[in-house]
C-alpha cells in the first residue's frame, strides 16, 4: 500500500496535451484500443497479420491495467520480479503442450 500510495499521489497524466486524471486517461486509451480491436478484427488482412495485431493490442491493454490500475508501476522491484515470474513458466508449459499438436493433427 505504501508504494501504491506514493505512486498514486499524482493522479494526473498528459493525454494529447490535456492534463487528465490518470485513471480516466487510461480508461480512454482502453476504450479506444477495444474499439480498435473490434474494427481491426474484421479487416480483410492475412490471418497471421490479424492475429499479431490483435494480440499486440490485447497485451498493451493488459499491461496498462497491470501497470496503472494494479499499481505495478509504483511497486518495488522485488514485486515486479514476483509478478513476472509465472511468465517463463507459462511459456514452458505451452511449449511442452505444443508437442501434442503433432499428435492431434496426425
Amino acid at each position: 500500500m505504501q508504494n501504491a500510495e506514493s505512486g498514486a499521489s499524482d493522479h494526473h497524466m498528459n493525454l494529447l496535451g490535456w492534463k487528465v486524471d490518470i485513471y480516466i486517461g487510461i480508461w480512454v486509451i482502453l476504450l479506444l484500443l477495444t474499439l480498435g480491436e473490434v474494427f481491426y478484427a474484421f479487416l480483410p488482412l492475412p490471418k497471421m497479420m490479424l492475429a499479431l495485431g490483435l494480440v499486440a493490442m490485447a497485451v498493451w491493454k493488459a499491461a496498462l491495467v497491470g501497470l496503472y490500475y494494479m499499481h505495478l508501476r509504483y511497486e518495488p522491484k522485488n514485486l515486479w520480479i514476483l509478478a513476472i515470474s509465472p511468465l517463463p513458466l507459462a511459456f514452458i508449459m505451452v511449449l511442452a503442450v505444443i508437442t501434442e499438436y503433432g499428435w492431434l493433427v496426425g
Partner: protein
Amino acid sequence: MSDAGIGTMDRTPMPGMGVFNKKLGMWVFLLSEVMFFTSLIGSYIILRYAHPDQFAAPGSILNVNLTAANTFLLICSSVSMVKAFAAIQEGDVKGLQKWLLATIIMGASFVGVQVYEYIELGHEGFLPALADYTAHVGGPLYGATFYAMTGFHGAHVTLGVLALIFVYIRALRGEYTVADHEGVEVIGLYWHFVDLVWIILFTIVYLI
C-alpha cells in the same frame, strides 16, 4: 499470539517485498491464476490450430458486438474500483462507498450479460461438448473450450462481485479509513486481474 499482535504484524510491510502480508498473499494467488488461465488459453490455441474445421470464424456464432460492450463494461468497473481505492487513500469514505457500489453493479451486469449470451447460444444449438452432443453449429471442441474458458472466468467475476459486496458492507460500516484500507487494495488487485484476463480472453476467443 494475541489478536493485536496479529493485526500489527499483518499491517507491517515485510522487509523482503516491501508490501504488507495480505497484498503479497493476493499477488502469489494471482500468479497461480496466471498459470491456470494460461493452461486453458494454451490448450484452446493448440486445439484450435489442430482442428480448424471445428472452430467457426469470428462473429459467425458468437456475438462480438455484445461482448465488446460487455468487455467495456468490465473495463469501466476496473476504473470505478481504482477510483474507490483512490478515494479511501484520500480519506473519502463516501467516495469509496459510491465507487464500490458502481463496481458491484457493473460486475454483476457483466455476469448477467454473459448468462444472457449463454442462453442465446444454447437456443442456437451452440453447447458444450457432451457425450450425446447434437449441436448443429460449431464442433464439440469449440463449445467445450469456449464454455470452459468463459465459464471459469465468469465464476471468477461472480466470486469477485461477492467479495466486493463484503467489502462494500464493511465500507458502509466505516471500517476502512485513510490509515487502514488494505482490504480495498487487495480486492482491487483481484478485480483488476479478472479484467486483465478477460481482455486477453476476449481477443483470443472472440476476435481471432
